[in-house]
Structure formats: structure tokens, C-alpha cells
């Protein structure tokens, strides 16, 4: 094992972002985060004050999402939302980038949008969600550069509500773009320790997941066999495999699918499994 169970737990943002989450669920989330010593709980703004109270005097951070999940609200609203959650005890904010502006190449707007949140965040860390499933590679790289210029602390792959989850491919790309001075958070569809370790190996230093308990508990299996980490078929973790025309802009979908035609592993793209 590369990481101990405790070290893996320290990378996890224990997440509950569903609309139907009741206060009892948030209480449970916080108790679990304390018990497992997770890095943070990642929640919607309405629960921040309650979670901050439950987690006070602990090392577990409170992380609130901002402009979630579309990122399509006004910068002023994102900034105001940030100010309010920080005031209520949030140590970290995960904002969604202005995806439409990025695709319009309106980079000044994208940058100023992030800057507005950074300015409102006081000492809180700012993570910027790119929603990689809506972007092609050049757009992802550009987004990373803009986040860095705007003073954000992390780039983050996905909301978990978009067309695609975190992939090692995207994490590697983002890590290369931002270098070592920023954090990279992988989030969306991460359910097993194998997926988490693959993403960490690709450059992620934070894992956002609602399956944190399962990931940590199942990681105890790793001490009894090395075979869990046998290489997978390359297509399994490739974003092109996950592309979905119903959820993505047509040109983005086609961009992903056209990569398959020139992929060196295309011979393995045979079975549906």
C-alpha cells in the first residue's frame, strides 16, 4: 500500500450535496468525518452553520459549494454567497466556474468571476470546479491557468451533477497545468479505493466523494492482496468512454469520441463492460 488508511482518509472531502439531505444526514456526515478524520465535509450552504457548530474545535474543515451546480449565476451572487458561508463558519468554498463564458473564450469574465469569490473568501480556501465533462482539453488547460491567475487555491474536476465524473486523465492534465503550487481535487463518481488511489496517483491531493466510508473501509482489503490494483482495460477510465451525447454539447461529445479513432489502445475498445 502506498498510503495508510489514515492517510487516505485525510484526502477525503466527505460529501453530501443532495437536495433531499435533512439535518440528520448532515449530523451523521459530520460525526463520520470526525470519526474517520476526513479532511472536510462538503455540503450545501444551508447546512454550513449547523456543520460548523458540530465540527468546532476539530481538524475537520467545513466546505461549502458556491454557484452550485451550474456556475451560471452572477459573480456578485457567488461573492455574496461566499461571504455568507465564510461568516457562518466555512473554511473552504468550492465554486463552479462560469462554463459558458469559458466556452465563449470570454476569459476576462471567467477570471473576474473567480477573483470575486477569492476576494470574498477571506482566509477560506477557494476551489474552482471546471466541470470537465463540458470541456475539451484546451479549455480545461485554459481554465486551470485562469484559476491560477485569479488566486484560487485548488482546481476541481466536476460537480458530480454534470455529464462526467473525475478521471485520471483529466486530473493528470490539470496537475500538469497548475503545477505543484495549487491543489487538484478529483470529484464525481468516485466510489472505490481503487478509483481514489488512481486519481491520487494521477496528481489529485483531495478526493470529493459521498462514498468516503466505503472507500476507507474497503481499503482495509488492500493489505490482504495486491491484485485489487491490477491494471484495468484503458477504456474503463478514459473520459471518451464516458462521453454522452444526451448530456454534453455535440461538439464536445464528438471531440471525445474522435479521440477513440486515434487512440493507441483502440483495439481494446471492443466489449461493453
Amino acid at each position, binding site marked *: 500500500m502506498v498510503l495508510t488508511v489514515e492517510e487516505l482518509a485525510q484526502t477525503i472531502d466527505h460529501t453530501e450535496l443532495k437536495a433531499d439531505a435533512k439535518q440528520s444526514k448532515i449530523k451523521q456526515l459530520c460525526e463520520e468525518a470526525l470519526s474517520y478524520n476526513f479532511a472536510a465535509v462538503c455540503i450545501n450552504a444551508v447546512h454550513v452553520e449547523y456543520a460548523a457548530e458540530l465540527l468546532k474545535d476539530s481538524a475537520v474543515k467545513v466546505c461549502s459549494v458556491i454557484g452550485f451546480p451550474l456556475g451560471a449565476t452572477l459573480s456578485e451572487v457567488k461573492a455574496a454567497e461566499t461571504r455568507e458561508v465564510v461568516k457562518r463558519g466555512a473554511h473552504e468554498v468550492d465554486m463552479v466556474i462560469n462554463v459558458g463564458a469559458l466556452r465563449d473564450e470570454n476569459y476576462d469574465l471567467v477570471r473576474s468571476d473567480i477573483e470575486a469569490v477569492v476576494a470574498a473568501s477571506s482566509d477560506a480556501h477557494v476551489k474552482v470546479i471546471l466541470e470537465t465533462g463540458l470541456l475539451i482539453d484546451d479549455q480545461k488547460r485554459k481554465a486551470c491557468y485562469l484559476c491560477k491567475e485569479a488566486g484560487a487555491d485548488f482546481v476541481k474536476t466536476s460537480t458530480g451533477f454534470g455529464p462526467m465524473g473525475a478521471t485520471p486523465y483529466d486530473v493528470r492534465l490539470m496537475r500538469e497545468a497548475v503545477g505543484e503550487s495549487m491543489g487538484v481535487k478529483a470529484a464525481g463518481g468516485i*466510489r*472505490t479505493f481503487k478509483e481514489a488511489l488512481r486519481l491520487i496517483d494521477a496528481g489529485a491531493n483531495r478526493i470529493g466523494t459521498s462514498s468516503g*466510508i466505503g472507500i476507507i473501509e474497503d481499503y*482495509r*482489503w488492500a493489505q490482504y*492482496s*495486491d*491484485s485489487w490494483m491490477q491494471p484495468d482495460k484503458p477504456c474503463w477510465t478514459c473520459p471518451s468512454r464516458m462521453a454522452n451525447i444526451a448530456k454534453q454539447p455535440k461538439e464536445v461529445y464528438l471531440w471525445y469520441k474522435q479521440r477513440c479513432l486515434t487512440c493507441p489502445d483502440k483495439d481494446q475498445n471492443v*466489449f461493453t463492460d
Partner: protein
Amino acid sequence: MSDTSSQQYADAELLYVSLTDGTIRRQPLPDDLYRKYLGGRGLGVKLLYDNLAPGIDALSPDNWLIFAVGPSTATSVPTGGRFVVITKSPATGTVFDAHAGGYLGAQLRRAGLAAVIFTGASKSPVYLWINDDQAEIRDATKVWGKTTDVTTDQLIKETDEKAQVACIGPAGENMINLAAIITDKHRAAGRGGVGAVMGSKKLKALVVRGTKNPGVANPERLREAVERARRLIKKNPVTDKSLPVYGTPVLVSVINEAGMLPTYNFQEGTFNDADGVSGEKLLERFSLKPYNCYGCPIGCGRMSRVQGRDVGGPEFESIWALGPQCGINDLEWIVTANDKCNQLGIDTISVGSTLGCAMELVQKGKLEHSLRFGDTTGILEMIEDIAHAQGLGKELGKGSKVFAESYGVPELAMQVKGLEIPAYDPRGVQGHALGYATSNRGGCHLRSYLIGPEIMGSPVLVDRDITDGKADLVILFQNLSAAMDCMVVCRFTNFAWTVDDYAAMVSANTGLEIDGNELLRIGARIWNLERLFNIREGFGKKDDTLPPRFSTPLREGGSRKRVAHIDVMLPEYYAQRGWDKDGRPTDSLLKSLDIPIER
């Protein structure tokens, strides 16, 4: 909280019952046996290895029939109400253990027992009535010939309304190789013909009422371990959602989607009408309520209502065996046939597989009969004939291996070591295929359930097509399963718990310092002792194989173009087991496992 009045598992007793002369004696659980083999399957296998002469007829009085429980039984450990039956199997000729849920296991432990060991054979039908410290062999003439539901009701009436019954039906009485032992009317120690061994001893039933308080060595440690174990079950999507909502039939759609749902006697891996026999359809059409065995927070069992009757089941394997395996898509009929099997005391997996085998013989012109794939006509009557060893049913009751061999087409029997392969086509899952081939009791899916990692992604998804590393995982799960079968707990906990959780609970149960590695070592000890038993019976490398059909690719579906690569994985498996190239445990391995070397 310490409970000094309760009885520790180490102080439980073995109840020896000679059915030949009617003598009954209690004996303390030998300390060495308990420390090395814990209980349940391990205890039974060790007793059989030490006491059965090689080559005995499994249906002769020389065979032993052991009902055992373990250190977790009737304690707060979730699912700790099961029992295991250990004997030499008439179907396979191997050492064999068959497990059942329900409530009888807890009663045995509450009666102060670790195991009941039946030896010899009675001349007339009997049952054993255990009422705490009292044990009595009683006449069973009145229930001989009766179905399991009638027998259960009658014997509870004769004994105690809170007693639990494990009994055989006509299939066991007629000593057919497909005979099961049924408890609580629909929970089966189903496989290997254990019911036939019971029938050979003229033992109709075991009836138990226990009222003692089972103690544990370290109640506080157990409370912590169980609290955690329950929490993990609640957090796991399989044990908290899929199984409680749909029961095991949830797998019909999953396995069919993977192209591994054996159809027409494994000629195909996709059943076109799978939706009609799925867990979702069962829930919509027939499910009455879930059924929880003793101490089980999961509740994978089903109670169904069909034609105005409330019946147990069906489970996934039963739906498959009586459905897609025979090309049958009538779920109402499957529910009815499953109930028929329970009443007659027949293993649904083996009977369905053997019927499918017969249908293929008809299809290929090897047998003239009205049996046809997809046609339910006459099958209920045929199941009756199997149980009563009549007509063609007598031949089918010997199981698919003997049946297909007798018609000169042994390759049409989908079995390993004489036991019919269950509901997962091995061509689509390399690790699971290796598990079938190397199973000590023949074609069994529960020895190393690699469907978890290879299909369901539990605990992580591993590539089902690769062979590298599969021997390692198969051995891990074989050893863990053996250890779980000693505790004795349900296989489904495995979705939520890791090795360490089992170790924590059994340590608290017993007071023995057992960590995860030591628990797996106990499992390995049992696995190797079973291997030695089977080698003594003439089994070897030649038997660690699959039917030739699985070397031919499936033509369609999610597992098309695949074959099982046993030849690639077996040498690695032997090497990792510490066996020689012929599959024999080496002396150094046996010494390291503290198994006496006999030559």
C-alpha cells in the same frame, strides 16, 4: 457487562448420537479442535478427516452427519443464527458442507451445543428431539413420507411450539443425490445430497429447543465490533438497499446484462426474457414481505404469494435453475416449482441444472422424452418423480453427471466434481471460473464469490477478463469463506465487512487473539485439510477443471467470444497455495498450518 451465568462457546459440547444402537453421549468440545478450527465447517471437517475411513459409501452407516454451529452463533454478531451440515457427499464423493439460515442454529447453541454428530443408521424412521440438556431419539414413522412443511408442523406440535426443525422430505428419504435438508419450511442446506445422507440414516428430522444464554469472552469488545459491523451493513448499498429491497433475485438482471446468465443448459449466456423473471418483476408480482433469518439486519429472503398460498423464496439461484437454465420464462410457475422443491426437500440448483441437461439431451436426440426447453408441461410431475425415485426421475435424481454419463454424453453435464455449477457462466468471469474448478465441494459459487469484485465492483471492480492476480483473490476468498463458515455467519456480510471485522468479532466471541492474518490462516488450514480428505478419496488435479463447454466461446451477449482460462490460472493457484504441480499440499505447508502429516 459481564455475564457469568452464560455459557462460553469453549464450554459448549459435542452431542454424539449413534442411530445404530440409540446411544447418546455428550462430550466437551476438545480444546485443540476449538482453537485450531473454531467450529462449524472447520470442526466438522476435522472430525470427518479423523474418523471416516477412506472410500466409505456416503450412504452407508459408516458416514457421519454433523450439524454444527460456531462461536458467533446466537450471539449479537449479525447473521449468527445459521448452521452447517458436514458429511461426505453422495453426489460428489468429497467432504461437503451445506449451510442454512433460518433459526435452528441459534437453538442448537442455546441448547449448549457446538455440534450434533450422527453416526450409524437407524432401522426405522426416527427424529432427534433436543430440549436443552435432554436429547431423545423418537419414532418418526408418522411423518415418514411427508413433505417438509407437514413434517415441520407435526414435529413442532409433538415437541414445543418454540422448537425449530430441520428435516428431509421424500427426496431425502429416497436417498437421491439432489436431496436437501430444509429448515423453517423453506431455508435449505441444499447442496451435495446432504438430505440423502440423512435419509440413509433413517433420520427424518432434528428438532431443537434451547433456552440457555450463550456467553461471549469479551462482551465489551463484541459490543464495539458489532456496533461497527451493523453500521457498515447500513452504509453498504448491497446490504442496505439491493438485498433488502429485491432479495438475491436482484442479480437476474445484473448477471444477464453481463451475458453470464446460463440459458438452455449453458448453451447461451443471455436470456431474452430475463426481465420477466427478474427481481424487479418478483417484487411487483409476487413478493409478500422480506424474510430475515435469525439476527440478520439484511433480510435477503423473500416470502411470496402465489395462487393464494404464502410460500418461501424464490432465491436468485432457484429462479435461474428453474427458469433460464430450462428456458422457462413463467415466473409464477417458477415460484410454484421452487415451493414444490422445498416441500419435497430438493436442491433447486441441482434439480434445475439436471433438468436442463436432460432437455439438451432431448434437443440433441440423445433422449426421447417430452421434456423441452421453455415448456413447463409435466415438469412439476417430473420433480415429484425425482423425489420419489420413479421412472426417468430416478435417473435424474442421481444428478447431471451420472445422468449424462449414462447416455454417453458426459460433456453435457454442467458440473464440477459431480456438483452442478450455479447461475454464473464461468466464461465471463475468470476468477470465478477458477473458484469453480478448485472448489473442494465441486461446482459452487460461494467458496470464492468473485462475482463481487469481477461484476459488482465490491470492494473494487477488477477486470473480469484478465487471469493475472485471480489465483491470489480466489485463495483470499476461499480462506476467508472457510473461516466465516467456522464462526458461522452469512456470506452476504462479506459485501460490508472486511477480514478485520470478522477477526474482531470472533476474537471477542472466543477470547482468542485472532487478527485478520490469523483468521485467514485458520481458513487455509481448513481448506488444506479438505484437500487432503479429497486426495484420500482419489481426487486430484484431473478434477480441478470445468466441463469442455466452457472452452468454447459464447456467441452472443455481454460475455461473447470469451472462454474460461483454467489452464493458465491453475499452476499459479497451486503455486500460491503452496501445493506441488499435481495439486498436493507440500509437507512444509502442512507443517506451517499445524496439520499432521500422514503418509
